[in-house]
């Protein structure tokens, strides 16, 4: 009989990290499928390259740190790669995608000591690094389903491969397409530029022939994974059902954004967009259901998660309405990630029997 001292309990529920991460990958499949449907081979190449480079980089890091390669199987690296791919614009060149994955794995996770110790959400920090290092190519969006640019058939592998490997200008040397023909501003970006010229929001949207239904289904310019609100909602509900995440962060986050948008839209309709617009525009749902609820970089306790969600909501809405960048969700989540250790410390649930006071 081995004399190693095993403390109780001698039973286990059978849950494992691999299962939890796999559930999140499953939840992301609808969004990934819709992105391939909307952006064709571009999206597919992006997703594959990001996931592969993330896995490869994690293997390299584990080898260097002489840690067992078995931790690769907990598909957290694959998940980080998929997250990053979904936040990138369709026309991202391949080296930028790979660089992003390397940043995500090395600077985002391994440098902090591997799974479970990173302070910031790895995919999001890599996405912000790319945004600030390559501002132009990170904010060029193309309309999905090539409805705007008939000449750019997204389902023809060779054109997509040339865009992916040689960048958009290589395509244009053929002369038949100009860059601004196929690219356009994202709804958020459009409103911000119009607002600086003093055009009220309603008119700006009309000029952009923006329709809420298209935005809900996904036919709008934006990163490949964040356009379709429907697919993201399906994934989010799936996560809640499988108890991978709790309702606290998404509801608090989206609720705060909608509340702020509603109040200010009533106060000054032409200066602030409607709540519906904020919900379907940009990466709010992707960030709320997937990025902010990354268990490692979000608070542990329910009270803390609600405070975290409200913080993300306020920051997202204020950056979108007043800030310099069109999309505030990424910055908001990163900023709140900094505050997580303090939130954990100060927002702990009341322990049984502590300051119960007079009881009936």
């Amino acid at each position: 009989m081995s004399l190693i001292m095993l403390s109780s309990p001698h039973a286990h529920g059978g849950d494992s990290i691999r299962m939890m991460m796999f559930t999140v990958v499953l939840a992301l499949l609808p969004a990934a499928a819709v992105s391939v449907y909307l952006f064709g081979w571009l999206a597919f190449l992006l997703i594959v390259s990001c996931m592969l480079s993330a896995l490869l980089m994690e293997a390299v890091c584990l080898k260097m740190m002489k840690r067992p390669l078995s931790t690769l199987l907990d598909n957290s690296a694959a998940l980080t790669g998929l997250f990053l791919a979904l936040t990138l614009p369709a026309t991202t060149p391949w080296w930028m995608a790979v660089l992003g994955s390397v940043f995500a794995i090395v600077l985002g996770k391994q440098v902090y000591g591997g799974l479970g110790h990173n302070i910031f959400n790895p995919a999001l920090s890599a996405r912000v690094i790319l945004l600030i290092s390559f501002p132009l190519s990170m904010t060029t969006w193309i309309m999905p389903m090539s409805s705007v640019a008939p000449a750019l058939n997204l389902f023809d592998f060779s054109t997509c491969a040339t865009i992916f490997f040689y960048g958009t200008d290589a395509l244009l040397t053929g002369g038949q397409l100009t860059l601004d023909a196929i690219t356009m501003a994202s709804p958020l970006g459009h409103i911000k530029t119009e607002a600086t010229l003093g055009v009220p929001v309603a008119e700006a949207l009309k000029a952009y022939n923006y329709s809420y239904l298209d935005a809900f289904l996904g036919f709008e310019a934006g990163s490949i994974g964040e356009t379709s609100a429907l697919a993201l909602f399906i994934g989010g509900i799936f996560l809640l059902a499988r108890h991978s995440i709790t309702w606290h962060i998404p509801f608090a986050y989206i609720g705060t954004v909608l509340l702020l948008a509603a109040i200010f839209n009533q106060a000054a309709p032409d200066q602030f967009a409607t709540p519906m617009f904020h919900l379907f525009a940009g990466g709010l749902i992707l960030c709320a259901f997937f990025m902010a609820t990354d268990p490692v970089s979000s608070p542990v306790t329910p009270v803390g998660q609600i405070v975290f969600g409200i913080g993300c909501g306020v920051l997202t809405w204020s950056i979108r309405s007043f800030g310099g960048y069109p999309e505030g969700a990424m910055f908001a989540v990163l900023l709140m990630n900094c505050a997580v250790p303090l939130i954990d410390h100060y927002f702990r649930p009341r322990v049984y029997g502590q300051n119960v006071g007079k009881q009936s």
Partner: protein
Amino acid sequence: MMMESMSGLLYALASLGAFALCAGIVLAIAQKIFHIEGDPMIDNIDALLPQTQCGQCGFPGCKPYATAVAGSEAEVNHCVPGGERTMLQIANLMGVEPKELDEEASAPMLAFVREDECIGCTLCIKACPVDAIIGAPKQYHTVIADHCTGCTLCVEPCPVDCIDMLVKPELIEHWAWPLPDTKRSQLGHERREQHAGHA
């Protein structure tokens, strides 16, 4: 031309001097208000020490060692019975980097008098720093097990050498769970080393 630069220089010196003077006065007054007597740090450190008064740190007792450490004349890692935990606590309090212990603390010991050989010379009673040995002149002495700190100061003065150090028996009530030591918690140990080296 000379005159302006001279007067400019004069103004500069005057204003700087005046300002420095009044700042000095304010600080002198503040010095009186916030005057503090003894250094409370000594008591904080003394409270951390195990009070075995054993002198293994090179000082005649715990209070002198605490004063030395507070005045940063002595290093934080001299207290042998305190072991790593005391050293870490003092380093933490002093805000200095923890230093490796120079000598590993042995298992806790208890002095034991072989009473038939004791001649009752009261030398060990006087040598014991914590009065843990009782007995009268010409009567045989005995060590109070609960009070003995195991500092071995009584062994040397005994003329008939009838005191020997026994290892303290481990009581079942005082047994404490060890860290999980199976291969299962290899990661836990790694994290513990990380922290220990960087308290």
